[in-house]
């Protein structure tokens, strides 16, 4: 009659990216303002192609908070990451003055509360907050799981999984009705959580030859994609398109082989 919530989709994304990392060693540490001394400051342990990690960057940038970004090799995780998140060992992890927080949506809420005088990320009204959290879980649990098969399927099977993905996104789209962003006139929590679709989905579509978010099927979502990608903190954080495309192309080939 009931089921606990899974996070299979996040595991899918980060694990398939991990395979690429084996060949494509990419360890870098990009400074984004604010020096770190001993345990002071803000550090983000992420991975350049991870949609979950980018949420954390968007939230920090909305607040105008400087941070150090540590790009992890998921096939060979750093001691620091494993020390900061021994339970799930996943990215992203935010470390604030030496204290670690894991799980991207939990990190985003933390950022909103820790820098509460900055840009408001969560809605103010309790009912709106509950709705935003509900949609965030729906997107992460249902939509992500519906999107992944689009990436790997072909032919008739792909047509079916595309329809399923569209059904899911159409449900999510209802939360956009009458608004510029999920957050209303400005970007909010739900935009930060699902915003990665705006950049990653067109790449998935290109790689797999499928059309998911079209003007006919998902007009509100399509329009929101454009508005979201035009937001400054989003624009300045996105990973290079050609690199992301190449990664996804290679991964698709690997999964289909």
């Amino acid at each position, binding site marked *: *009659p*009931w*089921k*606990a*919530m*899974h*996070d299979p989709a996040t595991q899918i994304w980060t694990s398939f990216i991990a395979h690429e990392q084996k060949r494509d060693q990419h360890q870098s540490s990009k400074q984004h303002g604010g020096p770190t001394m001993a345990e002071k400051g803000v550090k983000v342990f992420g991975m350049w192609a991870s949609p979950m990690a980018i949420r954390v960057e968007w939230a920090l940038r909305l607040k105008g908070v400087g941070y150090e970004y540590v790009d992890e090799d998921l096939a060979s995780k750093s001691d620091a990451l494993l020390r900061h998140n021994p*339970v799930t060992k996943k990215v992203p992890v935010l470390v*604030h003055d030496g*204290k670690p*927080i*894991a*799980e991207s949506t*939990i*990190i985003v*809420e*933390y950022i909103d*509360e*820790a820098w509460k005088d900055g840009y408001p990320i969560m*809605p103010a009204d*309790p*009912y*709106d*907050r*509950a*709705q935003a*959290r*509900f949609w965030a*879980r*729906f997107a992460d649990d249902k939509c992500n799981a519906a999107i992944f098969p689009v990436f790997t399927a072909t032919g008739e099977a792909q047509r079916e999984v595309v329809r399923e993905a569209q059904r899911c996104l159409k*449900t999510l789209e*209802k*939360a956009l*009705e*009458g*608004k510029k962003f999920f957050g*209303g006139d400005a970007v909010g929590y739900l935009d930060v959580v699902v915003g990665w679709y705006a950049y990653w989905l067109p790449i998935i579509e290109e790689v797999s030859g499928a059309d998911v978010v079209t003007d006919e099927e998902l007009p509100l979502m399509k329009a929101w994609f454009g508005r979201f990608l035009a937001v400054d903190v989003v624009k300045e954080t996105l990973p290079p398109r050609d690199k992301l495309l190449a990664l996804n192309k290679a991964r698709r080939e690997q999964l289909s082989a």
Partner: protein
Amino acid sequence: KSIDPTNSTAMAGEKGLVLLDFWVSPFGQRCRIALAEKGLPYEYVEENLMAGKSDRLLRSNPIHKKIPVLLHDGRPVNESLIILNYLDDAFPDTPSLLPSDPYQRAQARFWADYVDKKVYDCGTRLWKLKGEPHAQARADMVEILKNLDGALGDKAFFGGHAFGFVDAAFAPFTSWFHSYEKYGEFSVAEVAPKIAAWAKRCGERESVAKSLYSPDKIYEFIGVLKKMHGVE
């Protein structure tokens, strides 16, 4: 104003709190515990899920069609942890489930989320599966309990001195421990002694004692589930 996709205007006339629930659901029990801890009066509505879903449930949660659903002045809030967060937000003059410090709040959310993702499904695998998958489920459950044991540490409750968010999230599963032990052939007191002690402490709280069913009742219920799923 946000659009409410569940079209709750039909129910907007109802004032107060209503909980759509199913007697043995640990997710529903979390909400009952939270409401009791906050001293909030509410109407409890039993959804007989074995006999199909009521119109009210389907209207309140059209996407997942699941309990628990909290209706507040007719507007639905779905999913137990979201309901718990909502109760804190909407009733700030009641005892808070979440701590006030942002870092502590993030930790509480992390562990409640961990319980959510892991415990029920692993437990289901324990009673459903045989052979190697069963052995894996047993190993997973032991690891889950050990992790929670570590998170609790030497505190009386996950929330510290006070019963809080993670305690409300995990307490309903304490009546499932007996079944997990029988199906998994391990002892909670051995693999997670702090959790075992915590479970006793929780059981002494009125909010928990009133919301939970006996371990034997849960074991019996699992027997019913097994029949439903055609598991020997």
